[in-house]
């Protein structure tokens, strides 16, 4: 039950964050989406033992979070909540790949630990960035961007409808779950049979609602086609944003900046 309200809160909160008007929020949703895709591909194409080369990529999510006025702690919590699956898959690496790759003092670091750390850093970078994308762009704008980039109208409309009714139906489900838990004791009443008729009831109500919405659409001239009137215009800032970040990502992908930097430092130390 607490998960219902907290998930709803999450969607709500990200949605509210996307209603700000910082310079990041004002960018065309397409350039943000494309830059994010280039970012993710650059990161994922790096070698699996790579750690240092990943570090400079952090600048992009940090940039979005800082200029987009996003709450870092809140996003961090969301990233951690989503981490278990990647962690469970990655944690095997240290046990399966125990070749010592280098030493820090007396401690040998194995390739497995390196690749595990690499997985978790990639995870954090990509998830932070996707959350920052949605929190600076908003779901509707992302959908518009998708449509302009060639995703079929039918699917975009599906996404928009789904998003619209998440709020309505989640609240409905929340009320039902609350009503059930208030009358369930010692775990009785939480089984599959009750669940089945509860979900079934919710489903029937949902189908009725779909019918009512359809009538509401028909009485306003719906003919099977949803018309969306969103003017999207790319200006110089958008082009600068996309080309600048893309160039940086490719550069960071090709040259391991931290190595060059580290070499410089250790060279100085000697």
């Amino acid at each position: 039950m607490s998960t219902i309200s907290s998930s709803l809160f999450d969607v709500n909160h990200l949605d509210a964050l996307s209603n700000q008007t910082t310079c990041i929020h004002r960018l065309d949703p397409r350039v943000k989406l494309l830059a994010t895709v280039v970012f993710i591909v650059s990161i994922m194409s790096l070698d699996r033992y790579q750690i240092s080369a990943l570090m400079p990529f952090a600048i992009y999510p940090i940039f979005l979070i800082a200029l987009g006025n996003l709450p870092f702690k809140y996003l961090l919590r969301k990233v951690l909540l989503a981490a278990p699956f990647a962690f469970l898959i990655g944690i095997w690496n240290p046990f399966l790949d125990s070749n010592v790759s280098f030493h820090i003092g007396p401690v040998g670091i194995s390739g497995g630990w390196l690749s595990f750390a690499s997985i978790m850093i990639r995870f954090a970078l990509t998830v932070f960035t996707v959350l920052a994308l949605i929190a600076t762009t908003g779901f509707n704008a992302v959908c518009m961007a998708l449509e302009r980039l060639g995703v079929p109208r039918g699917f975009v409309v599906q996404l928009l409808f789904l998003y619209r009714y998440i709020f309505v139906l989640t609240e409905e489900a929340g009320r039902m779950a609350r009503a059930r838990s208030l009358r369930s004791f010692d775990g009785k009443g939480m089984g599959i049979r009750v669940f089945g008729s509860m979900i079934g009831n919710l489903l029937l109500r949902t189908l009725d609602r779909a019918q009512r919405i359809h009538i509401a659409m028909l009485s306003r001239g719906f003919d099977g086609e949803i018309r969306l009137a969103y003017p999207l215009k790319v200006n110089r800032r958008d082009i600068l944003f996309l080309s600048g970040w893309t160039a940086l990502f490719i550069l960071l992908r090709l040259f391991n900046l931290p190595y060059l930097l580290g070499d410089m430092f250790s060279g100085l130390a000697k």
Partner: protein
Amino acid sequence: MSHHIVEVIDLEYSYPDGTPALGGVSFTVTHGESVALVGSNGAGKSTLLLHLAGCLVPQSGEVRIGHLPLTKKTIPQVRRNIGMVFQDPDDQLFMPLVYDDVAFAPLNLGFPPEEVEQRVVNALNTVGATHLRNRPPYRLSGGEKRRVAIATVLSMSPSVLFMDEPTSNLDPRARRELIGLLKRFEHTRIIATHDLDMALDVCTRTIILKNGSVIADGPTVDILGNEKLLHTGGLEKPLRLQGCPVCNNN
């Protein structure tokens, strides 16, 4: 243009399982009239409204909106002229933003962009919701949702408005504001409701339905003052016409 804008003649309807819902309903509404449609739960109000909105086609009898009899063929034309406001605004507001929802009908009617914009602005202005234009519907209060839901049909400039329970689930102030709004409208309107106090304020004429038939049709003040008649229809006098519980005054 006919003086009679809505005509219902001997309308009958039974549900697919054979349960009768409407048994020979007849009435006529003239231009600019404001009519309350009242009756207990299951009296047939919603079924009647679905016919008026062109969502159901008469099984027997006739419904005429403007000049047009309602048939399968004329449904698209009929729908252009009517504005139907549903009971649950969440059913009516399905687009991402308030603007999209208000622009939905004009865009479907194929108006040019400038005209669409103008219609949206006017409709939002009429209901006093201009400031809500770029909000998603789930960020509106109950009262705001109602206003916007009304704007979504005003933007198609209908010649007649049908409303289902416009004041349900509103807090007293939002209800009062909505009543003020409805009073200002000059549209022909038929309002199905249980809120008889609202009917007293907004509607000049009242029709009582019972078990799918009209049992009374006349000036609101007369009908809502007739305790016996209301009782037959499963209704009660509007609170304002009832005695005061504190001073026991009649």
